[in-house]
């Protein structure tokens, strides 16, 4: 039941490509190369973004980058308030995380709760030497003290706004749009 609102483009396909390119470089620099780097995407668009970033990093460094996927549904703190949220995505992490530099990849950073859940879940899998956070969009509005290390674009979105990240693999096109409900 979405009330038709205004929809404005924040990034187009080319801008996304440029942002990811820059983010890949920053990740390499943050991790001190790609040798100990593990990219972990948060289901589900984070997984696709991690995939693209890994590809870009491999192009630059010539080495394959370890990747994983994390579904944080089971670590949410609001299971009973969101109601049935049946389908839990797959979680798979590459081997041992100890001593690795793990970069969590997600599409949008908002309240910080998802990242909190991801950090909890990650801790159950091992003890990386460093955990970083990379997001395509930081829209502000944090409810927890969490900040991203690498950001594609910062947006000043209001509470009630929606930021839609659309990706070719999932949605058939690349775009980031701000949806503002008509009030």
């Amino acid at each position, binding site marked *: 039941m979405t009330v038709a609102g205004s929809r404005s483009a924040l990034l187009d396909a080319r801008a996304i490509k440029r942002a990811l390119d820059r983010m890949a470089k920053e990740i390499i620099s943050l991790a001190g190369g790609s040798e100990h780097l593990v990219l972990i995407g948060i289901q589900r668009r984070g997984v696709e973004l991690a995939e693209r970033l890994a590809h870009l990093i491999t192009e630059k460094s010539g080495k394959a980058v370890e990747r994983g996927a994390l579904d944080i549904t089971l670590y949410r703190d609001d299971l009973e*308030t*969101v*109601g*049935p949220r049946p389908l*839990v995505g797959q979680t798979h992490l590459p081997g041992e995380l100890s001593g690795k530099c793990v970069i969590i990849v997600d599409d949008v950073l908002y309240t910080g709760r*998802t990242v909190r859940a991801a950090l909890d879940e990650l801790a159950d899998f091992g003890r990386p030497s460093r955990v970083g956070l990379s997001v395509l969009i930081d829209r502000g509005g944090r409810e927890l003290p969490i900040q991203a290390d690498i950001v594609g674009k910062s947006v000043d979105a209001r*509470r009630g706004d929606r930021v839609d990240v659309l990706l070719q693999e999932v949605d058939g096109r690349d775009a980031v749009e701000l949806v503002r409900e008509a009030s």
Partner: protein
Amino acid sequence: MALSLGKDLIGLEELSADQIRLILDTAEPFKEVSERAIKKVPTLRGKTIVNLFFESSTRTRISFEFAEKRLSADTVNVASSGSSVEKGENLVDTARNLESMRIDMVVMRHPSSGAAQFLAKRIRSNVINAGDGTHEHPTQALLDLLTIRDRLGRIEGVKVCICGDILHSRVARSNIWGLVKLGAEVAVCGPRSLMPRGIEGLGVKLFRRIEEAMEWAEVLNVLRLQLERMQAGFIPSLREYNRVFGVTVERLARASRKLLVLHPGPMNRGVEIDSRVADGEQSVILHQVTNGVAVRMAVLYLLAGGNPERAEAAKGQGSSREGAE
């Protein structure tokens, strides 16, 4: 509206095919949780679950307990001998007591058919039927379905024969409902004295002889034969039962197909199933046990999250992940 299971899981008779598939699909990621070094997620942290067993059961209780603990719930086990005098009188009072202790979920095994529904109608907590009399044992059937799907890649169109004491089997009833709803072809085979009347009305075929059943089926689900059935005069002896209805290596070898063999346990080796079959390559019995934990985690998770009232009450608090974060 998202699909939910409602408040309770009483039986597969009440579930739709989509709801059954939802449970099976949800069980998939939970298999992975049990493979982790730390086999625990915080999903049900702070939830209190009572495992109320009025009938002794080792494997079902342990399986539920693992499922609960791996989801971080707090669990209390209550075992009662359930003498025939006690059980009826206690059920209403038990329900009221549980309600007063503000628990979130009850997993109940009870010797009377209908006991789970009885409890569910009287308390606000979620009730999961872990076997009621000879009525249903839904989580057992769900894990059987998951195992068949894992091994054969599908359930629709698969020919499954349930063998043995159908009359006294809640496992058989739940399996029949689940399999029929998911489009499998279902048959039952066993002595006529252990076949309930009107069983064909549930949409199953009937085989009098195990050899014919094996020729027809792709999957055999072999039920446990209780020793008491002999004493009650339903069959002459366990020895003869094994001769006429036992699932043996020789019989399996004669079947034109390679059958998959399931057994809900605990097995009577040498009665309904030979050891060489139980331990052989066609047996998926241990796979069933592994799937049991995943299926039960899925059910606990779906019921805990599936309270539309609470979800409605909490709406608009702004921390929803819907597309925004």
